């Protein structure tokens, strides 16, 4: 019989036959990584390197000047940088905690509890996977205004907490928990909430971490909220401030120099990107574990 030559999933070590895969991957990864490497280099370039012609990709004499300029720009706009940062952290904090808690609670109910309309609820949620928030930014504004949430942290966080994708992923993950485990806890007299807290939460930690990451990405990067749902300058978040810098709208600042602005904007992009990537690298094993159960059946 001929030697098996088919697909080898998750090989233990490198073999020459894998070279062809690396030949596909390297150019793709380079194409994807270049803009990000560019941001990192650009953010640390001093003024003369930003102006250099022909333009250079790599930074030669890194400086933190762009970051300090960014802080100064915020001060000129009347709201200190620390305030924007604080707002972003508070909104993301509220959002991530609520998303994790609410999503996993609902996922447990949809997966293991028995009640009428359960199947329908899950189907509505699956349908909502196709929902594109950007399409309803106007009605969302009306809802938020009616609820009196304009100019508040909750107005920024609450609309983004119910994530159909998050509920979907956690529910599929909870499905994997054997019913016997839950039954035996019930025989010992545990209530559903106790089962959820003591058994389900520890077991579904990977899925919960994934929801946390997705919620953080969504809320930390959100630009629609601070643009539409907040008028008070001191309640706005980092993405909004970076947007005003990008558009050169800082009051009292003659933004006559778009090239110098590039360095500052690259620094801003980096500030937005770094927390996301750190969280993802830290939790990527858990994310992959969750995704294994992500299928629509």
């Amino acid at each position, binding site marked *: 019989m001929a030697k098996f030559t*088919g697909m080898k999933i998750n090989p233990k070590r490198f073999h020459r036959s894998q070279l062809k895969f690396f030949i596909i991957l390297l150019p*793709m990864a380079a194409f994807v990584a270049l803009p990000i490497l560019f941001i990192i280099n650009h953010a640390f370039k001093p003024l003369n390197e930003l102006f250099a012609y022909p*333009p250079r990709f790599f930074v030669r004499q890194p400086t933190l000047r762009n970051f300090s300029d960014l802080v100064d720009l915020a001060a000129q706009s009347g709201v200190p940088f620390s305030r924007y940062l604080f707002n972003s952290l508070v909104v993301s904090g509220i959002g991530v905690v609520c998303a994790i808690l609410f999503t996993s609670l609902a996922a447990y109910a949809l997966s293991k509890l028995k009640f009428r309309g359960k199947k329908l609820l899950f189907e509505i949620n699956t349908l909502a996977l196709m929902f594109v928030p950007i*399409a309803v930014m106007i*009605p969302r504004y009306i809802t938020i205004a009616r609820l009196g949430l304009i100019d508040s942290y909750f107005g920024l966080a609450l609309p983004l907490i119910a994530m159909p994708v998050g509920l979907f992923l956690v529910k599929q993950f909870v499905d994997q928990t054997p019913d016997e485990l839950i039954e035996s806890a019930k025989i010992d007299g545990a209530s559903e909430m106790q089962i959820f807290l003591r058994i389900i939460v520890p077991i579904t930690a990977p899925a919960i971490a994934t929801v946390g990451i997705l919620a953080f990405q969504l809320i930390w*990067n959100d630009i629609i909220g601070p643009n539409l749902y907040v008028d008070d300058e001191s309640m706005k978040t980092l993405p909004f401030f*970076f947007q005003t810098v990008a558009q050169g709208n800082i009051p009292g600042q003659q933004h006559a120099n778009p090239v110098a602005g590039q360095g500052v904007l690259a620094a801003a992009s980096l500030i937005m990107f770094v927390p996301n990537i750190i969280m993802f690298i830290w939790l990527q094993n858990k994310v992959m574990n969750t995704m294994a159960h*992500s299928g629509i059946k």
Partner: protein
Amino acid sequence: MTRRMNHPLWFLMPYILLFVAFIIVPVAIAFGLSFTYFNTVETPEWVGLRNYIELLTRDEVFMQHVLPNTIKFAFIVGPVGYFLSFLLAWVLAQIPHLPRTIFAIILYSPSMTAGIAMAVVWTVLFSGDHAGYLNAMLLNWGFISEPIQFLISPDHLMNIMIVVALWGSMGVGFLAMLAGILNIDQSLYEAAYIDGLRNRWQEIFYITIPSMKPQMLFGAVMAVVGTFQVGMIGVQLSGANPTPQYAGQLLVNHIEDFGFIRYLMGYASAVSVVLLIIIYSISKVTFNLLGEKE
């Protein structure tokens, strides 16, 4: 306190409240407003189907630019992005753990960048003067003699939007498909080869895709939604709404244009409803296409 919390409502209430308030109700409002004239100051005035009729018969920008642009953008970015996600996931599954993790993080990283902040990269790379990186390279190598106005030229804007969207298309769906392939039982392949499977193509179509169909479907929905979600990039790249000669105008920009620039909220809502219907139909069609390959 937790001792007596058994009722499903304890678990479902918070999520459902937010889901209704920020997804169901807004969709219902959009639907309702789409039958009205509403300028945000006066109370909405019922106009029946007028917004839809005007959209389909009078709105030349919509018919000549927005709709064709959206279709072109969606039909390239959606399928190509989906195919790339699958291809890369398939390749990644066949290399060892450490390089796989590194490549996966790199490929996923664009999904973590913020649109507004990232626009700076593209504006610098494609900048219309000779300081733009692409222009500098092309000038340097002698391909062109004059810098090209990539971002404000109607000829180039759409193509750049497509490249940028594809750059960021390896998202949650890509991760799901990667995990899906990694979870396929290796012995399936060995058995299939004994049963007479001959080559890689057969292997992909008879074993790999059927074994991970749930993840393929999930990835498809994510690809459709992701395609429409990045609709703002045309405006971010060119720095103007409307985009130059409407070259990069997509449905999402049309909504913003009418809703927040002209304050014709009723009309903008009608466009929103059309957008939601388009996304829903494309997802349904995709589902049926993929679903039949059992």
